[in-house]
């Protein structure tokens, strides 16, 4: 295996702690997700995100989020849970 090949799931750098905290809350904290959907800016201030993280999050800029140390699974699930709130999905259709 080439050493140059990066892992899909990498060590989350400490610099991305608040960003990952925010994504974790969007995934797993119904109250935070509701506050984010009502007023993303206020919810982001609650976590204390850096401006560049906040901009990437609000724009849904996955590549930038990953480059800044966001965990791919958290990006994926935070996005999925937000989309499910915005456009309800039909489950158990069979």
């Amino acid at each position: 295996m080439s050493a140059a090949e990066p892992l899909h799931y990498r060590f989350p750098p400490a610099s991305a702690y608040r960003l990952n905290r925010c994504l974790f809350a969007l995934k797993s904290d119904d109250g935070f997700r509701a506050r984010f959907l009502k007023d993303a800016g206020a919810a982001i201030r609650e976590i204390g995100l850096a401006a560049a993280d906040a901009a990437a999050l609000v724009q849904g800029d996955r590549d930038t989020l990953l480059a800044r140390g966001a965990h791919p699974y958290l990006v994926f699930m935070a996005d999925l849970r937000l989309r499910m709130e915005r456009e309800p999905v039909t489950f158990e259709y069979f």
Partner: protein
Amino acid sequence: MLVGAFACAHTPQLLARPGTEDRDLVLRVHAAFARVKRRLEALRADAIAIVAGDHVEAFFLDAVPALAVYVGAECAGTFGQYRYRFPIHEPLARSIVEQGVERGFDLCYTQSAPLDYAFYVPLYFTMPEPSLPIVPLHVNVYLPPQPTPRRCYEWGGALGAILQGGSERVVLMASGGMSHFPGTDRYASPEFEYDRRLLDTLRAGRGRELAAVTGEELDKMGNIELRTWAVVLGAVGDAKADVYCYEPSWHHGNAVVEWTL
């Protein structure tokens, strides 16, 4: 004593059944789960010890245990619209954590962490009637550095010895796998051939080979969750796998396996 050993996919789409999925494929996996459920009933177990990898639900970056045991009276969690709660076989859980530490595994334990859906999905489909208490056993799979496959296999060896030495009839179940890459560019292109080769190895009773695989290889092959299988393999040794199903969907290699003891 250890009376049964299984591995089950926990792909959330098997439970949620959104319109993105192949209905017939999902129903074939459900049929394999139903077979496990019947086997669990026939095995007359006292408890299910279920080994799963947390999806950054119970353990966030505040503390990331490599291996953990739930030792509460019960455990509960949520996943989207689903709410679930299971009684824990507390004496067994406590004995696993105490004896595990005695055997040199520095286990974390929790009496309150939320239960990840990786535990719920297989139990939703396979819980026998009447239902059994569980012991959730956590393996860190998503937050590097994860325990090595060898360490997981060794933990499984100790776990198997602990269970064999006890009076309870326990079924061991790994939750997770096979190849999938959630949150990455590879989501729609798992490594199905890797899965098939590994299943052939397991059918031949060569499960110990998974202990020699590197963490890098598991990551590259979308199989970080096979650490949970490595734990079960450590407990069952060279038993041969009976593959109930292998169903590759557009995003996930879904396998259901029993090791006949």
